[in-house]
């Protein structure tokens, strides 16, 4: 007799089969969806980021380059989708992040050295381990300024160097760089760019770089990820394989010029769309 009226109806929508990326993939993004104020920014977005490579992200204004890396880094929540690092979730992954605005990235209440040590302390490392890692970092960055000073006592380039050291301190699996050079003068940009390349050649940390400077984006990249206008999708992924270390001579190599030209063409095509 008893019969449930208007019983809830369950329709079994099978979750789409997780499709792993090709061999050597580090970060797999599947079905990423993000709406801003009711408008789609990303809809069902799939992407594979290769391991041990530098991927530069380039695209039209407002296409969500920074939003993309912020979502991957867990700073902006996603509406739906899945992001995995070597099959693990973000909370099991060590990441580093370098902000464009170094002034508001470091903590001015601590000395620079304590800022760099902070992620290590968060991981519960012992004093000896922290000191050892700091020594390594100072050596590999060839630091010429006094790390016992407070961040606000350093120049912009020195502060950004310290930010990068802090991001690299815990030996992250992925390093995110959100326009790290935009607020620096040209001399400092060149210096930090070379340091970054050096570190990369030594550690082969996967890096994702957002840049608004095409030359810089190509110069550092193994892959250039070109995005469309919103709703954002992948316009193209270009590979750039010139040997490292790349130098000023690289900038006049035919392969460099060709890649840059091709990127620009795709970019312009997307902007006009």
């Amino acid at each position, binding site marked *: 007799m008893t019969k449930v009226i208007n019983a809830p109806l369950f329709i079994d929508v099978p979750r789409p089969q997780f499709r792993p990326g090709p061999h050597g993939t580090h970060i797999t993004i599947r079905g990423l969806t993000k709406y801003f104020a009711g408008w789609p920014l990303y809809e069902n977005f799939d992407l594979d980021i290769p391991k041990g490579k530098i991927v530069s992200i380039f695209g039209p204004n407002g296409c969500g380059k920074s939003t993309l890396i912020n979502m991957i880094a867990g700073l902006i929540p996603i509406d739906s989708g899945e992001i995995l690092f070597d099959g693990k979730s973000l909370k099991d992954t060590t990441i580093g992040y370098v902000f464009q605005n170094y002034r508001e990235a470091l903590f001015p209440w601590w000395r620079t050295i304590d800022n760099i040590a902070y992620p290590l302390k*968060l991981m519960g490392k012992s004093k000896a381990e922290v000191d050892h890692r700091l020594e390594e970092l100072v050596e590999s960055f060839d630091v010429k300024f006094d790390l016992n000073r407070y961040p606000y006592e350093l120049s912009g380039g020195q502060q950004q160097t310290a930010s990068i050291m802090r991001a690299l301190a815990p030996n992250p699996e992925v390093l995110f760089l959100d326009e790290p050079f935009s607020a620096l003068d040209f001399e400092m940009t060149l210096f930090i760019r070379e340091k970054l390349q050096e570190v990369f050649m030594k550690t082969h940390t996967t890096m994702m770089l957002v840049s608004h400077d095409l030359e810089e984006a190509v110069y550092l990249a193994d892959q250039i990820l070109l995005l469309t206008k919103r709703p954002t999708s992948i316009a193209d992924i270009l590979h750039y394989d010139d040997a490292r270390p790349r130098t000023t001579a690289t900038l006049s190599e035919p392969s460099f010029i060709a890649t840059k030209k091709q990127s620009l063409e795709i970019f312009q095509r997307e902007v006009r769309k």
Partner: protein
Amino acid sequence: MAQEATSNTAAGAWSGAAHGLPASVSKAGDFTRLLPAAGPLVLLIIWDIVVRFGLIKAILLPPPLETMQTLISGMLGGALLHDFWVTLYRTLVAFAVAVALGMPLGIALGSNERAYQSVEFVVDFFRSTPASALIPLFLLIFGTSDINKIAIACFGAWLLIVFNCAYGVINARKQRIAAAKVMGASRWQIFKDVLIWESLQASFVGLRSAVSMALVIVVVAEMFIGSESGLGHKIINAQQVMNTKMMYAAIMSAGILGYALNIAFLAIERKIVHWSGR
């Protein structure tokens, strides 16, 4: 023409300054250092002239030198000193209790947006209500005791501290919080390593206004709540018996107290919030 003239005079002045550089710089330096003394000096001179020429009756405005003598002898162990200490004591106790109760609450409210929104109006309302308007109410609750003066000063200071601490936490730089988050900091670690520090700048604004507020209310309370001591009591007493010399001296020592408290808090602030404004 005009342009030429200006550029000429500018050049003239510039080269003149350049020639006499060492001498004029040191002279200018000495002079600049004396500038802060000019205001008080002018004030004393006007005061003296006004009294000397009888523009204001001597019973209303005593001569400046005699008033200063009363102030100095009073502060060097005379009757004034005891009242000074009593007022300072009441102000600091009220302030200390307000800090102990206000700072944790303000920081907690600031880090919980919903909690803050639900009490924002109440805090804003009582913050805008003159604390002195509540003196009769506090009289009813605490009677005319010493506790009363401290309690009401404490209440006024507490509101300022709560508001400013909450404000400081709410306005913490989002990117610093993001930086800690991305390094894997837990909510508690973000709170103790970022939020509290970020809030310090605004908190100190609150602490400084709170100590001034506490002093104002203590002095007012000492005047009107059957008091036996304190600068407020001294001022009203001297006024009642037309001892204007003592009245002015007591007013000045209240000023000295307020000024010293402000300077002390600025110094502490500069020491603790060393990154402020950089």
